[in-house]
């Protein structure tokens, strides 16, 4: 499903080289729920960006869902991304659209037949427990609800891989627990999940395979 082989990433800020990832190698199998943890700046977001091909490694190989991302042509990026759901710390909901429209937007963009859109959007909203708030606008949602809406948008295409970058970063413990429960439910359906979080307690409480990043290196792979 996911395989990284000796991956390094260096950002250039003028003449200064800033290493974000150093010699990272690991493999994630189909249906696994993997927690990526580490302090802010450890390289979690960089790693996730490499997985949905928002960036390229400076060295090494990245393979996701059978696609070799380093040699991938630009035209192949869209097909790859159709198989990956991504959630961010800020929900990135479109403010002028309702929750339902935000979720349906993804299906409309991808040319899903109109008759399927409503059913699939409501399936996703039910899965995250937000169908009652379908007609609400993002500004009317709590942060936890906004994050659940973002999750619904990420899973509405039923992607085999879900990447979550600090989805609980802005939430209190109770709301974070809600999101984690939703992620567990999604994982139980067979979706491979990579959850990046700096919250060590949350990572420990999940009792899943955990990759710990420190200064751009994987220093622990346990569980």
């Amino acid at each position, binding site marked *: 499903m996911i395989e990284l082989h000796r991956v390094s990433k260096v950002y250039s800020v003028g003449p200064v080289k800033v290493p974000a990832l150093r010699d990272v190698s690991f493999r994630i199998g189909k249906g696994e729920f993997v927690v990526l943890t580490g302090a802010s700046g450890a390289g979690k977001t960089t790693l996730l960006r490499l997985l949905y091909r928002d960036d390229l490694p400076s060295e090494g190989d990245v393979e996701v869902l059978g696609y070799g991302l380093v040699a991938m042509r630009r035209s192949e990026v869209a097909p790859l991304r159709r198989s990956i759901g991504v959630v961010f710390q800020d929900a990135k909901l*479109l403010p002028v659209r309702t929750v339902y429209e935000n979720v349906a937007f993804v299906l409309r963009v991808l040319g899903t037949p109109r008759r399927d859109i409503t059913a699939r959007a409501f399936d996703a909203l039910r899965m995250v427990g937000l169908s009652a708030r379908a007609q609400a606008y993002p500004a009317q949602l709590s942060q936890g609800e906004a994050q659940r809406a973002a999750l619904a948008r990420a899973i509405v295409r039923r992607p085999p891989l879900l990447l979550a970058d600090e989805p609980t970063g802005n939430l209190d413990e109770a709301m974070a627990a809600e999101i984690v429960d939703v992620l567990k439910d999604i994982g139980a359906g067979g979706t491979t999940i990579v959850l990046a979080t700096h919250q060590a307690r949350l990572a420990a409480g999940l009792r899943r395979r955990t990759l710990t990043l420190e200064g751009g290196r994987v220093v622990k792979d346990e569980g």
Partner: protein
Amino acid sequence: MLGFLVGEALRDLRRAGRVAVSAVVLITLSLAALGGFWLVSSNLDRAVAKWRDRVRIVVYLKREPSAGDVAALLERVRVMPGVAGVVFIGKADALRALKQVLGKDAGVVDQLPANPLPASLEVTPSAVAATPEGARELLARLAALPEADEVAGSADWVERLAHWQRLLGTIGFGVGAVLAVAAILTVTTATTLILHARRHETEIMRLVGASELTIRLPVLLQGMMQGLAGAVLALAALVVTHSVVAPRLEPLVNLTLGISQLVFFTPVGVAALLGAGALLGGLGGWLARASREP
């Protein structure tokens, strides 16, 4: 999918608000100017074509040839380059024509001791000879006929009319082009605002794997919609102006230019104007897109 793309384009237009309205107004002005000059120019073109057909060169003969010589003379003229047709007018024919022109005063002619009018050839130049250059060359050839006494006629004034027609066309094109550039820049500005407003949508679309066509098309479409709206308004303005002005001007142009009716655009012309509008708007949308996305 088409419904989605058009829906997104309409949503973008609403977002652009007043800037989009300004763009539509500028496109309307540019196409109305372009279309107005085009209409005047095409009507003048009709007048020029009509008058070119009426250009005649008259070769006055030294003496009236015999019936047998007339046929040979006509044949010699007919084969000359630049001649489309030739008619012989005998002295008696010329006198009859003069009497017709004089009408009730025709009796004056009967007082003359003899017919003073010369026999002549009325030459119709072909299209190539109905220009100042062509006419001059034909005049020289006709003057060289041994039977010719004097040659009269030219295409100068028709050319002057054609010159005005070309000048009007050029002015119209120039004014239209300046306004069109302004319109394109306004659409570009409106589209840049739209691109900024829809950056979150674009980010989500890229993230979920939308094709580049799906991402780009709404922006291009909204530009084309602005252009098309401007073209429809310009066309409506031209229709109203034509229907009000044409009946009042037609008697005057009939008298001066000899065309009885001021025509409007053909269906092809209407389609061209609408297409030009869509093209202007689409170009503005494309330029904004291209400048923001290397």
